[in-house]
């Protein structure tokens, strides 16, 4: 937050030093210079009032726009922000065209609940995930709902098609964090061959350095892994992926019009640097996810207990102890010890039941779906909170043996 205000301060100082009348600037701007314009008309046979013709006409305009931009060698800049904007635009274009709908409203009520999906009988199309097609579908106990799988495959295919286009190879290298020390194609192919199954599962986990070190995610860089997390989250709401792209641009749009401030530009680079974002987004997400999981586990356990256990069981004693109504604490930090105990108890408790019930508890589709939803939306929430309020001035201390990416931030704060 300090850095954010520092940027504003620098800007405001420059404003007061060099303000020139806006009216004069406006009068001398190129508004009045005879701008070169072109009126275009795609060659198409069309009828007035025919919507299909209109759609074709506008699509041709879009193609024209694309070709013209390519001819001008004025493509989307090969920056991380450019790459992420490219993905966001493609998701929005293709998903929206497939659906005719916009963002997810997971708990919006639908008039006709869908009791089940059968892949062979139902022609699946992209659709927003809702309470009915996400939570209320019982294809199998442990599998993700079919609509989720289908949407995930659409998201994945859009991403891969975009990245495998030769025009976007520089963007792909950016996302891959490729630095030229080995063949990027080999790394990419390895990644493509391994990401498929994990990606369409409900428990696609955010990788961290520890897991990467153990080889679970060694086929992709941390940056690419986080892009995949963002894509996975966008299965629920692809529109919000655009906010992830916004992370890689300066957070404050009040940069200068005529004379960019070197100080502000320097600060902007820090804000949008991966080390800073690792600290402000990825680390935060990694820290909260276990708590969210535990909370869901605990809530799930409570529901099971309330439905099946008698009052005098050990589980219910602890439960009642935890849930003294007037003292019940919803502080997140309080959930971890309670949840870890409840997890231990729930497993022991489940083993004492018959096999079918145990299966239902251990691989609860409801619980997995809830976790997947919560973790995905949590990710977007963290991103949007950062975009709205700016980064926290608290910067973690450097760790021995690890490159200190946050050193510039620490220096600025000092």
């Amino acid at each position: 937050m300090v850095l954010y205000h520092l940027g504003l301060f620098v800007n405001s100082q420059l404003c007061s030093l060099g303000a020139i009348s806006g009216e004069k600037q406006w009068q001398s701007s190129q508004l009045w210079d005879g701008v070169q314009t072109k009126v275009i008309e795609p060659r198409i046979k069309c009828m007035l009032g025919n919507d299909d013709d209109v759609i074709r006409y506008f699509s041709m305009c879009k193609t024209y726009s694309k070709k013209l931009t390519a001819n001008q060698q004025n493509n989307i800049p090969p920056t991380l922000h450019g790459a992420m904007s490219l993905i966001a635009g493609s998701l929005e274009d293709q998903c929206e065209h497939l659906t005719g709908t916009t963002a997810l409203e997971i708990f919006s009520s639908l008039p006709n609940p869908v009791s089940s999906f059968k892949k062979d009988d139902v022609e699946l199309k992209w659709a927003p995930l809702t309470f009915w097609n996400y939570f209320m579908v019982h294809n199998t106990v442990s599998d993700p709902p079919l609509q989720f799988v289908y949407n995930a495959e659409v998201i994945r295919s859009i991403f891969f098609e975009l990245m495998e286009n030769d025009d976007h190879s520089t963007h792909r290298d950016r996302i891959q964090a490729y630095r030229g020390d080995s063949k990027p194609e080999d790394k990419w192919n390895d990644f493509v061959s391994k990401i498929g199954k994990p990606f369409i599962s409900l428990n696609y986990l955010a990788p961290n350095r520890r897991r990467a070190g153990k080889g679970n995610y060694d086929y992709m860089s941390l940056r690419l892994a986080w892009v995949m997390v963002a894509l996975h989250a966008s299965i629920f709401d692809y529109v919000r992926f655009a906010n992830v792209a916004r992370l890689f641009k300066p957070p404050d749009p009040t940069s200068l019009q005529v004379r960019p401030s070197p100080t502000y530009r320097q600060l902007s680079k820090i804000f949008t640097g991966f080390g800073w974002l690792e600290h402000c987004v990825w680390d935060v997400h990694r820290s909260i996810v276990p708590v969210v999981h535990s909370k869901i586990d605990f809530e799930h356990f409570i529901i099971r207990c309330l439905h099946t256990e008698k009052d005098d069981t050990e589980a219910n004693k602890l439960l009642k102890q935890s849930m003294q109504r007037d003292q019940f604490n919803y502080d997140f930090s309080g959930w971890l010890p309670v949840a870890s105990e409840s997890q231990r108890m729930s497993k022991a408790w489940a083993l004492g039941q018959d096999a079918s019930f145990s299966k239902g508890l251990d691989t609860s589709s409801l619980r997995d779906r809830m976790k997947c939803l919560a973790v995905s939306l949590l990710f977007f929430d963290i991103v949007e909170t950062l975009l709205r309020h700016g980064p926290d001035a608290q910067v973690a201390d450097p760790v021995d043996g690890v490159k200190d990416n946050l050193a510039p931030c620490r220096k600025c704060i000092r």
Partner: protein
Amino acid sequence: MDDSSLKDLPPLASRLKQGHNHSTSYQLSNNSHLISSLLHERGPSSHAMYQPDVNHRVTEEVYFNEHTVDETGKRQIPMMQSFVSRQESCMFTFGNPISYIHYQAHKVADASVLSPCLKIRTHLPMAIKHSKSRDGSGRFVGRGVLSGLKAGFCSLSAFMKLISLFGFKLGSAHTVTSNDNADYPDIARIEHWHSFLSSFDEKLLDWTTKEKFIAFLDAYPSLGYKYDESLSLRQNINVLSYWIRARCPVRAAIPDGQHRGQVLTYGLVGNFEITSHAPLREFGVDEWGGVPGQGKLLSLFGSVPSGVIC
């Protein structure tokens, strides 16, 4: 308006036509972009600029203010710097003209059921007020969509309604004679647009002072717009843009040069302040700068009023 008071539009100039594989175009180098800027659909009570999805490129507003580097490594100055500069090396549209298409906005009961291609929406995500925002902030970030309008071909009758505002009518010399005319029955062609946009006296398309703008209004009395002394010059231009769009359903969209077009339009109507050193404030799409004290954006996502179209 009495038809007899209207003048014939200047003759069509077909020799200027440039053919490409899939499109035909006319190039102009005058200030007619001011007229097209007035025709951009903007929120009925906001600054946001809307158009059908005809431009492939979606980058964010940082583009306006940041230096960019193209793929050849050539450094490009920020678009706003180019816009306010008079240096020849920084010409705003140097080498790349801004492309326009003109379409017609039709009233519909509910645009949400339409194909996305027919929707009229913001090119960039924007922050708008939304009482049901997920985070309780009262804001929603995303593309704004006009709920009560859809885009279609610009009919000749709509085109005639527009030119009549400027005192013109189509004469017998305005029949398009190209071979593919039969492919566009009753649709306004680019020859018509070229003829209309070339018809303006360049001296009148200089609105840098109140007197010059009033001279423009006086030259086109059929517009019926009277300069409001209680408003600033740019607020008057802004109100004129709403005035014209309320009287004809013709709108402009930009397939190529969208960001430059936005800078032109926003600069023209006062969406942002142009100064040498003041920060460019966030695009205030939720503010109404036309008439002081007449409220903020009232519309909500999904229920944006459809605007006034006769």
